[in-house]
C-alpha cells in the first residue's frame, strides 16, 4: 500500500499448538493514528511484542520503510525508531521521575559507555526532560521516586519516557488504562499533539478514545484480523459485534 511506513505480512506467533497471532497482514500508513482493538486474549499485546522484537516471529515478515526488521533485536528496532509503552507501566522504579525521562534522552545523546565522566554531564538534558514532564502534568513529581508515584502518574511517566526518544512510530499499549477521566482527556490531547509528523499505533479498550482519536482501526479476535477500516465501518461490522458480544447479538 502506498505510504505504508510499516508493513506486516503473514505474521504468526505460536505457543505450542496455540496460535496467539495467526496470519496477520497489516499496513500502517505514515502519519496516521491506528488503533488495534479486540476482546481480551485477541493477541493485541502479542502483536505489539512481535513488532518490537520482544518476541520472535514463528512465521512472516515485518518491514519498516521497506527494510526487513523482523529478526532484529529489540534494542535495534527501538534505535530504528519504533518505541513502545507497556500495558503494565514499565518504568525504572528506583529512579526519580526526572531521571526516568533523562535516561531515555541519554540514549539519544550517546556516549553512554563514558565511565570516566561525571553524571553531572547529563544535567544538560534536564531542560528537555522537564519540558516533557510538564507536558504530561508531572513536573511537580520530578523529584519523586518513580516507584512511589500513583498509578496514573506512572503511566504518564512511561509515555513521557517513550516520547523522549522522539520515535518515528509510537506504539502505545493501552495508554489510558487505569486513568481517571481528567487524565484520559489529557493523554488523548497529548497523543493528538505528538502524532503530528509521527505515526501512532495504539492498543486501546476505551472505544470512545478510539473513536475520537484514530484514523484507522484494526480489529483482532483469536489472533486474526476480522475487520479493518474507519471506526464507523468496523463498529457496524457483524463479525466485530459478534466478537465483542457473542453470536446472539450479531
Amino acid at each position: 500500500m502506498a505510504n505504508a511506513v510499516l508493513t506486516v505480512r503473514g505474521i504468526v506467533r505460536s505457543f505450542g499448538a496455540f496460535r496467539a497471532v495467526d496470519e496477520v497482514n497489516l499496513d500502517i500508513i505514515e502519519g496516521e493514528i491506528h488503533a488495534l482493538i479486540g476482546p481480551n486474549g485477541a493477541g493485541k499485546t502479542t502483536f505489539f511484542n512481535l513488532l518490537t522484537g520482544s518476541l520472535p516471529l514463528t512465521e512472516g515478515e515485518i518491514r519498516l520503510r521497506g527494510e526487513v526488521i523482523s529478526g532484529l533485536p529489540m534494542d535495534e528496532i527501538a534505535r530504528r525508531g519504533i518505541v513502545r509503552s507497556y500495558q503494565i507501566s514499565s518504568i525504572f522504579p528506583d529512579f526519580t521521575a526526572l531521571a526516568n525521562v533523562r535516561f531515555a534522552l541519554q540514549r539519544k545523546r550517546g556516549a553512554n559507555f563514558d565511565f570516566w565522566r561525571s553524571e553531572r554531564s547529563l544535567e544538560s538534558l534536564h531542560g528537555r526532560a522537564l519540558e516533557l514532564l510538564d507536558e504530561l502534568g508531572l513536573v511537580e513529581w520530578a523529584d519523586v521516586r518513580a516507584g512511589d508515584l500513583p498509578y496514573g502518574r506512572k503511566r504518564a511517566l512511561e509515555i513521557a519516557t517513550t516520547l523522549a526518544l522522539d520515535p518515528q512510530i509510537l506504539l502505545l499499549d493501552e495508554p489510558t488504562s487505569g486513568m481517571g477521566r481528567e487524565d484520559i482527556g489529557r493523554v488523548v490531547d497529548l497523543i493528538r499533539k505528538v502524532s503530528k509528523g509521527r505515526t501512532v499505533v495504539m492498543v486501546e479498550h476505551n472505544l470512545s478514545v478510539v473513536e475520537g482519536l484514530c484514523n484507522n482501526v484494526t480489529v483482532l479476535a483469536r489472533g486474526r484480523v476480522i475487520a479493518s477500516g474507519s471506526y464507523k465501518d468496523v463498529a457496524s461490522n457483524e463479525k466485530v459485534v459478534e466478537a465483542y458480544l457473542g453470536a446472539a447479538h450479531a
Partner: protein
Amino acid sequence: MAGTAFLKTTRTAGVSQSQFLGFTKARAIFFLLFAALIAVGPQFLYPIFLIKVYCFIIFACGYNLLLGYTGLMSFGHAAFFGMGAYLCGYAATQWGLPFELSVLAGTVIAAAMGLVFGWIAIRRTGLYFAMITLALAQMVYFIAMQAPFTGGENGIQSIPRGTVLGFIDLSSNTTLYWVISVIVLAAVAFYNRIIHSPFGQVLRAVRNNPERAKSLGYNVDRFKLAAFTISAAMAGFAASLKTITFGIATLTDVSYVISTEVVLINLVGGIGTIFGPVVGSFFILSLEHFLAPYGPWVLLIQGIVFTVFVLLFRQGIVGELQKRFRTHL
C-alpha cells in the same frame, strides 16, 4: 511550563549539588574518614594485614559494581583474582618486569578473561548466570593445578616487590603500605566515578528494569559485558597488588573460597553501596585475622555472620547506616 525555570536551578535527578572529588557530601565525609583510618592504621595494626584488607576492598568494589549496580551475581571471580595473581607473579619472576608492568599484566589477563567469560555467561540471567561463572572458574582452577607455569601446589614464590617508577623501593613494609594506601583511595574514588557516570546510570537502569532499557534502545548485553570486564579487571588488579605484597601466588587465590568471600564481604558491607566493600572487607578480614588462632572455628563464625546478615540485615552495615541517617553512602 509553569515551574520549569525554578526546577532547572534546583532539581538534579538525585545528583547533589555540592561534591568533593566526585563524592556527595555524606560520601565525602565517609571517604575522608576512611583516609584518616588509613593514615593512623599502622599505629594500631600490622601494615601487611591492612594492605591485604585494601586489596580486598578493590576486589570487592569491582564485584559490587557487578552485583550491586548491574544485578549480576558471579560465583566465578576467583578465576580473575587467581589468574591475575599468577600472571603478575610470573611476569615479575620470569620476565623480570617491573612493579607497574607486572601489575598491569595481572590486570589485563583478568580483563581479557572477564571479556570471554562474560560473553559466554551474559546469555543467561539469575541462577544460571551464577552457575556458568562457577563452572568456568572451576575449569580455571583445574588448569591452575595442572599447568606448569603456576607451580602447582607450591605456587609461584619469591616474587620480588621491585620499585615504583624505578626509584621508590617497595622492599620496606612502610613504603609499600603508603603506596598501596594511595592506590586504594584512588581505586575507591574511581569506583565511585564509574557508579556516578553516564555508564553507571545505564548499569543501574539495567538492574532496575532490563526489559525497559532494551525497549528504549540500549544494548543491555553490551553494558553487562562492559561491567563484567571492568569488574574482572579490578579483581586482577587487586590480586596483583596482593601478590606483590606477599611475594607469592597460590592455588588459594584461584579457589572457590575467594569467590564466596567477595560475596560475603559485599553482603555484610552493603550490596549496591559505595562504601559497603570498604566496611565489609574490614569486617570479614578482621574476623579471619583475629580469630585465626581458633582454626576451623572461623568458618563456623563466618557461617553465623552470613546467616545473621541474610536474615536480619539484608542491606548490610552501610545499607543499615543509610537507612538510619537517610542518606546515600
